[in-house]
């Protein structure tokens, strides 16, 4: 690692690398979300029999993690580089290690471990088996074989690789605070995100209009349910995402008691599960167009709902 990559060089390198492995480069999805997994490019596309290979950067908002831009490692919004490959390739671990080499991280010069970490997102009905990847003791990647998404069995199994871009970059650039990261030549992470971090923290913890947020949650939920009934999967899912983010804002504000918390999470989970089911049904109506194996396609299309 003689010359240090900027954060945007890191993104470009990963994009270039994974596009060569057959991943489509998608763009960040334009609705707020807590993790790259919640992008429809993962959440929806992981379900059903169609193959799917994609990579994208996802800004991920976690209001409760905001620290007014004062903590060197905690952020209201961080960035994930998300790779999803379905079915999971047999050499996915090797591909991942090659991606680190592409970033100038030679495994022979470091200590890289795959440490068990099974992932779960109960609010979206998701569960998977995998590891966190340690680079010299630092967790830089979450590596998961999806087993269940939106309450449905994932078949074929999708493999998800999620790089924490700030963590990884802090290591590569050898800085102690994410705000000192170089995003592009001459521009620091703090120059771009310092102010929004402060403002979003201030907003989430002190200023947000709770009553409005409670109302919004209910409104979004009604709309999501209605569009699920209409079979309009993507608009419905957008509203599920909005519910999730609205809940996160309320939670950060301390406006949700523990009792209510479980109730809200269950409401989100139920919507996510319904959307997942409708998504598969709608893809089936379209004839699972991404499935190129004709025999399998015909077989699945004949199967009862």
């Amino acid at each position: 690692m003689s010359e240090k990559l900027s954060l945007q060089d890191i993104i470009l390198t990963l994009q270039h690398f994974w596009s060569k492995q057959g991943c489509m480069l998608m763009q960040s999805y334009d609705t707020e979300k807590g993790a790259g997994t919640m992008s429809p490019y993962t959440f929806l596309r992981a379900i059903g029999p169609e193959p799917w290979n994609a990579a994208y950067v996802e800004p991920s908002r976690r209001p409760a993690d905001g620290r007014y831009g004062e903590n060197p490692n905690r952020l209201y919004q961080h960035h994930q580089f998300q790779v999803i490959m379905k079915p999971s390739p047999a050499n996915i671990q090797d591909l991942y290690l090659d991606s680190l080499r592409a970033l100038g991280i030679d495994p022979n010069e470091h200590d890289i471990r795959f440490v068990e970490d099974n992932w779960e997102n109960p609010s979206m009905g998701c569960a998977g088996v995998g590891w966190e990847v340690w680079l010299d003791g630092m967790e830089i990647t979450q590596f998961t074989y999806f087993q269940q998404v939106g309450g449905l069995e994932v078949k074929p199994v999708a493999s998800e690789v999620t790089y924490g871009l700030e963590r990884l970059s802090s290591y590569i650039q050898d800085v102690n605070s994410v705000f000192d990261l170089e995003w592009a030549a001459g521009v620091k992470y703090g120059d771009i995100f310092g102010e929004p971090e402060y403002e979003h923290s201030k907003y989430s913890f002190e200023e947000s209009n709770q009553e409005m947020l409670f109302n919004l949650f209910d409104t979004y939920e009604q709309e999501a349910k209605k569009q699920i009934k209409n079979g309009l999967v993507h608009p419905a899912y957008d509203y599920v995402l909005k519910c999730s983010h609205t809940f996160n804002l309320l939670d950060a504000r301390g406006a949700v008691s523990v009792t209510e918390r479980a109730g809200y999470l269950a409401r989100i989970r139920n919507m996510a599960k319904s959307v997942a089911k409708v998504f598969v049904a709608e893809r089936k109506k379209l004839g699972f167009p991404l499935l190129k194996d004709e025999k399998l396609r015909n077989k699945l299309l004949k199967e009862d709902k």
Partner: protein
Amino acid sequence: MSHTFLLEVGLEEIPAHVVTPSARQLKERVETFLKDQRLVFNKIDTFSTPRRLAVKITGLADKQNDIEEEAKGPAKKIALDKDGNWSKAAIGFSRGQGMSPDDIFFKELKGTEYAYVKKFIVGKTAAEVLVGIKEAVTSMIFPTMMRWGNNDFKYVRPIRWLVALLDKQVIPFSVLNVQTNRVTQGHRFLGNEVVLESAEDYPQALVTQKVIADAAERKQMIKMQIEKLAAQNNWKIVVDSDLLEEVNNLVEFPTVFAGSFAEKYLDIPDEVLITSMKDHQRFFYVLDQSDNLLPNFVSVRNGNDEHLENVVAGNEKVLTARLEDAAFFYHEDQQKTIEDYANRLKKVMFHDKIGTVYEKMERVRSLCKLLAAALDKENKLSKSEEKALDRAAQIYKFDLVTGMVGEFSELQGVMGEKYALLMGELPEVATAIREHYLPNSSDGVLPESKVGALLAIADKIDSIGAFFASGMIPTGSNDPYALRRQALGIVRITLARNWNFSADSLQKIIVQNYENEPILYKNIKPTENYDEMGAFIVERVKKLLSESKFGFDVIETASGVSNNSFVEMREAANILKSHQNDNDFKENIEALTRVLHLAKKAPNDATQKIDTSLFENEAEKDLFEAVSKIKVSGAATNSLEQLYAALGSLRPLIDNYFEKTMIMVEDEKVRANRLAQLLELSKLTQRLGKLDKLNVK
């Protein structure tokens, strides 16, 4: 000639805690397979790393043992027709076994004669048999199983290669699309694949490719490197065996290294530093010769010592970030008062159906007063202990909302003690706050202070009571709130201190607390599921006694009366056990058991007085007087040993009584009077438990 067989399953990284048990499981399955297949062997060695599970079988026979087997056919009377010729059934049977009726002989089985033939089965070769060892691989069961790719097959992690070598010959089978071969993989980064010429080459051939497949050897390497490092630096490196086991299963080739952190972080409590190092980073921590924590750590790299400086620097950076966080919390947490934190617990739920943590503290505080008052004279708290208990109970959960416990939840109680001292609480109060979590495992240490012990009991019995009252009763393996562990904790503390609590007295104290202060129980009603809770606690006493090697019947007997204190239950078990081999034990117990059985027929309203004028014989009178004497002499307050002796002395009187007296007579008055007399005696035996559960046959 004897052979060597190697079976290696190559996997993506197995969870560290699963590696060793899985290697053992594979060995057991292979062993069972070989035995079922009658394939004799000398020894099975196991090998395991994060990426492989393997067994090497040496001294393996050429082929299965040949066997001579008798096959049973129809009964003789069916096998032979009236004229003594072979029936169709007999001919069919012998043909089915590949033989002729001439081979049939008769043998008796349970009084009937049957047709048999002797079959000689030639053993298959080892190579033929071993193809079936696939079953041992695919039938493995793991705590978490997963699917991958397009498959429905579940395993611990994806299978990436398989080696099955009988000497120099590949035994062909496949799991999914992975075919057995002679190729194994070296270290992920430092090694190459290895083509094994023979099973004999394993595991030595892997060493050059930086894989130490023998887990014990790997562990020994780590230990020796740690010792060397300790000697070089004059350190004491604390090697926790669980951590060593985990670390050993995270590496294929271990290189131990040391790192350091800034001395300023030593101001943070040791427990925080140790948790950061040990639990979060899997580091070993380091002490000086006087057991003071040093700003150093020791870890194990999965690889050799090249570029080790990168690894050291990276690990130091990660630890520093964690410690920086901890230092921040430690400082910030001290800016508020205990009352601030306690008040915040009004917003923290203990459980949705039960209420907040603050409400729990209020209940426990008044429970503590009642419990302290219920202690017998010689165990009473001093005035200062009473004060400390009340203060501790008022605040004992405050640390839950500190930043440090938010980040390091495993330090609950530990931080409570530290902060309480820093914020000016008495040491007795601070200690009780830490100790109320004890024991935190089934054989964990108990609170050392009396105040801590009482608070621990109050906290636990409140939790058990609240969950039972809300209908959240543990079933089978489902005990999400660890109520069994907490009940066991109560019993262990009580027994260790010889306190007089029983399941019944503790439950009554809860009900009393509820009646005194119903406002503290707005969501729960402690009278709900009352009996279930009593049985649940007594069940823990039984569990504890069974671990002390008491017989099943002694335990059932001694724990049979739920208002007996835990101490008395243990004492009764001891006494019964100590007399179990006495010559008169059987007779004594049989006599008393007879009384107990009949007494059950008495109306249990206790209003029936014994009327001596209704006695019709001397035996009744004699027994009555003897029992009265025991009662007057204070059998209830005497030791259980004395009670046992006194009851034993009644035996001739009881025997005589039954000889002379018919209990279930027509005359209602007389019958009731006799039953009342037996009931009185049976009540006297209750402190020894339910004697009719003793096995005296």
